[in-house]
């Protein structure tokens, strides 16, 4: 694994300004992510994990520090940074295939070919002409993933993409996503608050702690794919992440008592 460094984050801090005063959302984040890596980011609510993802995506450019992708500073959103929101955010007036193409024309043979391949990849064959209102939550989210992948992103940023799905659909979606990752080797940064999900998907788990958001620990996951959630090794890693959560809680209590 001598893959090159893709994402480089140095001294990243972010402050939210509001009428009630300033809130420090992220503090001195240092993070490097290699090409082809699957990284999950986990932490309690308010730890700034979504903020971090939005900054990497270029959707939020009001921060201190440096964020560079492939050696170039991130200056705004773009197709090289695919973004999957918690909701699918499809265009309701377009069919599945047109949603995936979005601003590109399906009449171009190369677009047509790739869209067909992606529909196959996200397992939506037969639903090309369906409208978003006819899809289930999991299907709609798969359309959103295909839409991002059509643009050949350097990195796919996923902001709790399966958070609104039921447990069975969620497990299925995790497998679909791993399948895509194994085939395309697209670098994935996946934000979640579900420990099982974080362990199941990742090469590396970034645990964030809140107030201000900072990296608590980074846990390597060396389990081979496909992973079994009931295996001992899986459970041990799960406990390790839980242990980090306990530490965060203790810190919070101490911090609270100190005031």
């Amino acid at each position, binding site marked *: 694994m001598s893959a090159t460094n893709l994402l480089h984050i140095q001294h990243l801090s972010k402050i939210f300004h509001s009428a009630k005063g300033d809130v420090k959302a992220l503090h001195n984040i240092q993070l490097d992510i290699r090409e082809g890596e699957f990284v999950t980011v986990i932490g309690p609510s308010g730890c700034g994990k979504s903020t971090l993802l939005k900054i990497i995506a270029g959707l939020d450019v009001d921060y201190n520090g440096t964020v560079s992708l492939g050696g170039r500073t991130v200056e705004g*959103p773009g*197709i090289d940074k695919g973004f999957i929101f918690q*909701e699918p955010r499809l265009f309701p007036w377009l069919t599945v295939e047109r949603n995936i193409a979005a*601003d590109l024309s399906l009449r171009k043979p190369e677009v047509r070919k790739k869209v067909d391949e992606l529909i196959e990849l996200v397992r939506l064959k037969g639903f090309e002409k369906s409208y*978003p209102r006819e899809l289930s939550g999991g299907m709609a989210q798969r359309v959103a993933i295909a*839409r991002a992948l059509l*643009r050949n992103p350097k990195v796919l940023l996923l902001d709790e993409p399966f958070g609104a799905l039921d447990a069975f659909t969620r497990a299925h979606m995790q497998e679909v996503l791993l399948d895509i990752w194994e085939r395309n080797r697209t670098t994935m940064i996946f934000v979640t608050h579900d420990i099982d999900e974080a362990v199941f998907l990742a090469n590396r788990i970034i645990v964030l702690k809140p107030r201000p958001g900072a990296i608590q620990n980074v846990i390597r996951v060396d389990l081979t794919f496909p992973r079994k959630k009931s295996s001992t090794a899986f459970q041990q890693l799960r406990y390790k992440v839980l242990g980090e959560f306990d530490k965060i809680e203790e810190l919070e209590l101490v911090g609270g008592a100190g005031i």
Partner: protein
Amino acid sequence: MSAPTTALTNRGTRKTTIVLLGSLIPVSLLVGWQVLGDLGYISTLLFPTPLTIAEAFGKLIESGELMEHLQISVTRAGLGFLLGGGLGLQLGVLVGLFRQTERALDPSVQMLRMIPHLAVAPLFILWFGIGEESKVLLIAKGAFFPLYINTFLGIRNVDNKLFEVARVLQFSRFKQVIRLALPASMPNILLGLRLSLAVSWLGLVVAELMASTSGIGYLMSDARQFNKTAVVFVGIIVFAAVGKLIDSFVKLLEHRLIKWRDSYKG
């Protein structure tokens, strides 16, 4: 074998029943009107009987007068609508998309909106003469506002989350308009279209009554002066029928263009 046939016949009779029920009131009204008029209970000068109206209708069609006037009227309303509605749509998009344009244009537009047709009609005649220009412009003035306001509102109602998606997918400014802003605000734009077309058609009366020698409005005002009440009724019927036709056309358009909507259908 006979079961489906009976079902079909049943459906046929049910349809006939529905039509019969629906026409019960209008038909009895017409018959009553005719009988009362013939017996002299109501003034045939104020309420010419249905048969007299039908007769006047037939005569106007035969002489080609009706078609001629109708054609002129439709052309006026159409031109006025295209001019005013087209401008309303374009400005609505501009004002909807850019806050700066809104600040610069909207206050003035809202002021102009409150000026009644009848107040500017004499001015338009002074400026543009009694020819076609003043009429078309008066109709255009009416057609402008519904499309302007509804397009503006439609664009402002587009989910900001979709604009965020467009940024992530790097839509060009142009694609943001034609692939996002316009389709997303289509329900509002079509409502504006419907209202604009109606206003154009209604504005026609004002335009043709003020100073005109042709058109359905003229036909009616001319007939009124010579106490040909039946012709006035023919004009009213033509106005209503064409208006309904235009409305049905927009409804058809609505059905085709916004079938993607998952909304309550009553």
